[in-house]
């Protein structure tokens, strides 16, 4: 064990300097420059003295240390308690002594002067050693090898091959390890190697494990993997990480994150990460990279959907991009895709027709030689909600009932109202030129054909269709209701039977039976009456003006009487009579209905056989304390029921989310209400779950029968196995209420959580950033691992034996100091300096 005071190069330099300085001293003396010669001589002695000191220290240690022990490390220790201050004071004292000596030897020959100064300085240094009490601590230590962690990407994108005939990225990784066997042997002399794979999670593996493993991970959570591996070595000695990946990171790293964010994170790792790019260029792919659309949209309001098409490694081409829902194409656009790597945005505009959940899909066809085909389609869910209730009010003549309804609807901020009133009929006399009147033609085609589906509710108020040539459009109104729309017909002199609706498609959708033209029965009654709520009517959402049935009955009783009734022939079998006439009867002896609600197809219709409901508003307001609010409440109720507010549906099926990852359990809540919209305890609901965008071709994955509880609800949980396959799922519920079948459905999407194969192209840039952010080396697309790759040396030390060699307490040191001082004194004597 030798003590090294000077590096080898410095040692040579000191020796060389001593020789050169000696020559220079001789030259200076010969030229008569005594001062310079003396200075050079002192420098020569200093250089030589330094080398001599190192030799003396080594000699001392060698003599003092036990020879049998193989010490392999040493360190300097200072035994005196003076600390740094003592060292500084000692150094100053030595310099002072040298300075005084320089002054005291003025006039002496150069060599002699230099020698005297040197001797005194040597003695001073010796005294300094005694003062500071230095020692060498000799140690026998052993080092633990530290770890190299190999972090290998086993996500699905590593299973891709840029060349269909060539190796996959993962196969290339295996080959890299086979070809780097000698390098690994070299590294294992000082390090141990650990192997990990990562995708969504990090798992330990081995080279043997890698050989049989398949890359199937559904994400490339590179950041999480680096974090996780680094955390495993917290407190342990990590030499570095070798990251082998295609660079297509997901989960807030790589393309998803800014470089600054990545670098901030990489700094926290505090270890080198060397990277190897397992991918190669040349991959061919077209992908729906992103779809930007709001999660919520308003019904019948244009929704903008931006789809970003990413093309990689393909020749320029024109491709159709299709937007579809329910398996049916809605829109298609041709897009010119440039060569190479590019992104093109395609914008679609759609107008959802109804409230509910919609699963849309954007797709592009598969190109020849494409590496990944699953990213050519992308599904997403838009929840369509109602912003305003769109109401069409068509009135056959201006009247107070018409005015009251219009005023109520116009003042309701949730209603978008289109009114059309017939102000003049063909029977009316017109002696006035048209340009002196404000009348416009009845836009029948626009209202009843083009715009009909845009309304949530159509109100036909004392309106006869015959004079206006809209007989052809009555079928549109019927199919509108059948398809889910709301229809209200209000009475009056030209409504119901007297409006000529008997036998028309509109009559089919109404909840009441009308009199035919040749029946001969009276169709109108002008009497005054207070309608009577039926049992259903006392609880039905339309006629519930108060929450409790008794309060409601009291309110109805206190309302002002109505005037005038449209007589009808009967009530449709599955319709619900809410209020009846107190005196008039149907032919079957039952009370004449005044307000009747019914379902027709997917829609609802309401028949109000009077045109005096306005009495509940303005006439009621004659009484102090009444502001006519019951009229408003009645109509608000009616609108909610007619437009099928979710709370007012007999059967509701609702999944607890709109999007799930495969195998995640799905909770479906079912709520069943009876005919009076009160919970139907212990009712039975058939539930069928199907998979497939196209409802006609969807495959059944589960079917069950549920019995709802006393509160009318039940929860069904689909197991992970039922929803393992990605796709569009539909839950259809069927129940029978009072002999009538009611249906409800919901839709949800099962989709891979990650975006692993959405962007399959390898990304060497990400790996380069990882390497440069951690002092590592980005090796790029290498075939073997280079031996020279730098790793941190092992830091963990084990000390087996230790001994201290005190330099200051050696007797030789004392002799040396005395000898030096003696020589110096002798020289001074001989030179005549005392």
């Amino acid at each position, binding site marked *: 064990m030798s003590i090294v005071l000077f590096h080898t190069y410095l040692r040579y330099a000191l020796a060389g300097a001593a020789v050169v300085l000696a020559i220079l001293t001789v030259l200076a003396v010969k030229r008569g420059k005594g001062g310079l010669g003396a200075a050079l001589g002192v420098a020569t002695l200093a250089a030589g003295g330094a080398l001599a000191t190192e030799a003396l220290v080594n000699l001392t240690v060698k003599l003092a240390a036990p020879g049998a022990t193989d010490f392999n490390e040493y360190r300097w220790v200072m035994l005196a308690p003076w600390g740094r201050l003592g060292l500084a004071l000692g150094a100053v004292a030595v310099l002072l002594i040298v300075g005084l000596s320089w002054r005291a030897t003025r006039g002496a020959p150069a060599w002699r002067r230099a020698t005297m100064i040197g001797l005194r300085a040597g003695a001073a240094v010796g005294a300094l050693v005694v003062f500071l009490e230095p020692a060498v601590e000799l140690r026998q230590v052993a080092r633990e090898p530290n770890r190299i962690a190999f972090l290998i990407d086993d996500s699905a994108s590593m299973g891709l091959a840029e060349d269909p005939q060539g190796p996959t990225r993962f196969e290339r990784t295996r080959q890299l390890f086979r070809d780097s066997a000698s390098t690994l042997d070299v590294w294992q002399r000082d390090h141990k190697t650990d192997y990990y794979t990562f995708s969504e999670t990090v798992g330990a593996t081995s080279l043997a494990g890698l050989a049989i493993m398949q890359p199937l991970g559904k994400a490339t959570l590179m950041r999480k993997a680096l974090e996780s591996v680094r955390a495993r070595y917290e407190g342990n000695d990590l030499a570095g990480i070798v990251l082998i990946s295609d660079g297509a990171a997901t989960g807030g790293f790589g393309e998803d994150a800014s470089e600054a964010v990545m670098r901030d994170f990489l700094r926290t790792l505090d270890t080198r990460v060397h990277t190897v790019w397992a991918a190669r260029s040349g991959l061919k792919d077209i992908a729906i990279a992103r779809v930007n659309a709001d999660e919520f949209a308003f019904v019948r309001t244009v929704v903008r959907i931006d789809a970003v098409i990413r093309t990689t490694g393909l020749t320029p081409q024109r491709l159709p991009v299709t937007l579809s829902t329910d398996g049916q194409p809605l829109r298609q656009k041709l897009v010119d895709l440039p060569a190479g790597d590019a992104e093109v945005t395609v914008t679609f505009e759609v107008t959802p027709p109804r409230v509910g959940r919609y699963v849309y899909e954007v797709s592009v066809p598969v190109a020849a030689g494409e590496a990944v085909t699953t990213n050519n389609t992308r599904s997403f869910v838009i929840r369509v909600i109602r912003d305003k209730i769109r109401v069409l009010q068509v009135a056959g*003549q201006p009247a107070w009932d018409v*005015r009251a309804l219009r005023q109520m609807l116009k003042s309701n901020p949730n209603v978008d109202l289109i009114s059309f009133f017939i*102000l003049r009929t063909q029977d009316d*006399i017109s002696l006035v030129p048209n340009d002196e009147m404000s009348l416009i033609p009845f836009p029948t085609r626009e209202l009843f054909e083009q715009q009909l589906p845009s309304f949530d509710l159509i109100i036909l108020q004392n309106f006869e269709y015959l004079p206006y040539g809209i007989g052809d459009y009555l079928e549109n109104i019927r199919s509108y209701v059948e398809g889910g729309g709301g229809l209200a017909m209000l009475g009056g002199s030209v409504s119901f039977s007297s409006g000529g609706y008997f036998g028309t498609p509109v009559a089919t959708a109404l909840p009441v039976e009308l009199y035919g033209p040749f029946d001969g029965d009276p169709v109108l009654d002008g009497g005054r009456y207070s309608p009577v709520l039926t049992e259903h009517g006392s609880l039905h959402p339309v006629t519930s003006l108060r929450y409790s049935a008794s309060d409601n009955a009291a309110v109805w009783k206190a309302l002002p009487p109505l005037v005038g009734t449209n007589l009808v022939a009967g009530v449709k079998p599955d319709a619900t009579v809410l209020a009846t006439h107190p005196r008039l009867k149907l032919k079957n002896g039952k009370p004449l209905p005044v307000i009747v609600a019914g379902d027709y197809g997917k829609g609802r219709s309401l028949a109000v056989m009077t045109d005096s409901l306005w009495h509940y508003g303005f006439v009621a307001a004659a009484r102090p304390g009444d502001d006519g609010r019951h009229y408003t409440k009645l109509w608000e109720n009616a609108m909610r029921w007619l437009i099928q507010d979710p709370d007012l549906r007999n059967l509701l099926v609702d999944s607890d989310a709109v999007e799930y990852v495969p195998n995640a359990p799905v909770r479906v809540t079912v709520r069943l209400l009876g005919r009076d919209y009160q919970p139907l305890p212990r009712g039975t609901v058939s539930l069928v779950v199907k998979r497939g965008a196209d409802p006609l071709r969807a495959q059944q994955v589960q079917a069950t029968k549920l019995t709802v509880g006393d509160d009318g609800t039940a929860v069904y949980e689909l197991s992970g196995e039922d929803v393992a396959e990605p796709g569009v799922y539909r839950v259809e519920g069927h129940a029978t209420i009072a002999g009538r079948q009611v249906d409800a459905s919901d839709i949800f999407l099962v989709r891979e959580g990650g975006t692993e194969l959405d962007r399959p192209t390898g990304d060497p840039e990400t790996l380069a950033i990882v390497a440069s952010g951690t002092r590592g080396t980005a090796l790029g697309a290498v075939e073997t691992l280079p031996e020279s790759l730098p790793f941190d040396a092992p830091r963990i030390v084990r000390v087996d034996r230790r001994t201290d060699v005190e330099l200051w307490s050696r007797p030789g040191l004392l002799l040396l100091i005395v000898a030096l001082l003696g020589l110096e004194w002798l020289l001074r004597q001989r030179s005549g300096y005392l």
Partner: protein
Amino acid sequence: MPVSRRGLLAGGFAAAAAAALGRRALADRSRKAPAHGSSKFRFGQLQLGSGSSWNPRPGALRRLGWELEKRTSIEVELEAAVVTLASETLHETPFLYLAGEREIELPGPTSIEALRRFLTFGGFLLIDSAEGATDGAFAASVRKLMAAVFPAPAKNLEVVPKDHVIFKSFYLLDQPLGRLAIAPALEAVERDGRIVAAYVANDLGGAWARDDFGNYDFPCEPGGERQRELSFRMGVNVVMYALCLDYKADQVHVPFIMKRRKWKPDE
């Protein structure tokens, strides 16, 4: 029994015609049905003050009602209901007509409150001056009445601009002519964007009133019969406004509203 194509066609036409006629007949039957409740429009003639001063132009409302029935789709009960502010049936005739030719006594607080409720919750009051002056005693009474019903700082009678919907609710008009043409503008009280009371100083009733022999009671000055026609048109417009409110203001925009909102959904 074999049926020829001609026979089948003839039968089909006959059936269709019968059905159409049947419906027509039913519609006609309904139109002629006796007093079908509240779908018929009926004037309420407000009896305010003493004596017969509340009805200076007997027969005027009946004549306007007849014109309404003939010119528009409104079904009219020709006989006006005479009501007072204390009448229990006041709110069953939401259109009140108040005429006068001399000062009227301000009604008591209960009546004033009743009129306020009537106008606030949807009623309409047409005030027609028959005194032939814009600053007469009746006009002063009317202003006092309106100030009592809607005390300051609420707005009192104000001139109605010519582009107001009341001037285009059926006919296109620009001033409220009556028997006279002394006041160029209609004055009205607006509440929540709705005219609740309108005042005309031109004696509308004077232009409408007719005797039992079919002769108009008064000549119209200075415009003669053309002025009478415009007076009827004003009456029609006022009733139409009361029944349809601002319908004409939005109705002409329907196509634009629909197009702008892109309402047409995907099929």
